[in-house]
């Protein structure tokens, strides 16, 4: 039930019966850049385990593999990242890899579309690195995300 509640909260854009203005709305959001597949699917664990340092390695794999990156804001919503400062093309470029699991403050344009939240990050105002050190509680999530040692 907890995950369902969180999911409903992060999909909060859909609570509005009609769409907001079509032009992007400038916003500043603080939050963590997350792996949206593992966060929403629940396949790797609960939402507390698939963020932060515990999920960093998997987040890198997913981002490189074409999974959309999201910004989990302090408001509890997930903003699907369409583009980010320093990445001259859309999400999943090198910039997003370098920021995976980082807590950032983003300035950008916000769009509501099809009940989802999207953001074009025009400026990473601050990058605080990985601040949620949950690997101490969960270990690596999932364990198999760790690279194999060289033989």
């Amino acid at each position: 039930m907890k995950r369902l509640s969180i999911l409903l909260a992060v999909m909060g854009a859909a609570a509005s019966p009609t769409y907001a203005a079509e032009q992007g709305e400038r916003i500043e959001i603080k939050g963590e850049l997350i792996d949206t597949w593992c966060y929403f699917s629940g396949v790797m664990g609960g939402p507390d385990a698939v963020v932060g340092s515990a999920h960093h390695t998997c987040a890198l794999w997913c981002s490189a593999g074409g999974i959309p990156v999201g910004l989990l804001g302090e408001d509890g919503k997930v903003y699907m990242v369409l583009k980010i400062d320093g990445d001259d093309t859309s999400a999943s470029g090198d910039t997003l890899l370098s920021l995976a699991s980082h807590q950032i403050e983003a300035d950008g344009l916000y769009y509501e579309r099809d009940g989802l939240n999207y953001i074009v990050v025009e400026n990473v105002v601050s990058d605080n690195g990985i601040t949620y050190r949950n690997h101490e509680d969960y270990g690596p999530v999932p364990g198999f995300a760790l690279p194999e040692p060289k033989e």
Partner: protein
Amino acid sequence: MRFAVAFMASLLPVLAHAHDGVTHGSDAEAAAHQAEAAVANLPLGAPTELPFDLGGQFELVDHTGSARSEADPDGHSQLLFFGYANCPSICAVAMPMMAELTDALLTDGFKVRPVMVTIDPERDTVVNMGPELEKLHEDFVGLTGSDDQLAHVYDLFQISREKVFDDPEYGAVYAHGSHIYLLDDQGKVLTLIPPILGVERAQKIVANYLDSDIAQ
């Protein structure tokens, strides 16, 4: 490579249980199914023109060797994704979802064409794309082209294609686009669909557009 194999194995329960509504092997599976069902019922709002500048005219070659543009030759709407036909990693999320979505939309009376533009023309060739894509769906179209042709399409959709590492077994691995694009039969981008959505939710989004004036 261990990650990719284990990751794909981990997807199976979610995909298999995505619509059963009955039995789940774990709390996580049950939660995922419950969450998907909840999201599937959230209101979409009226379709609107895409506020981003995406898409345009292009010329590529399909998996049969025929020229293909942004328009579907049979007049179908299209689901477009940038990825690998021969993917050893986690494209396993988006492309099977596109295949399942194609079938789901057909039950609504919408014939859509799943299309993949390769981000690795060295790995995906005219010769080898077809058999791999057919494993996913018989209507899947694979597109490739010259470096210039592909670069043009990547620019149109603002697709990243950066090599992130070399897999010792499979070679170069590229970061690539993340979203599925819904195109009308002429190639106009109607909206985008994050592949993390459940098929049921994606089905509603697509149907919402194909029923609207925007898609006419």
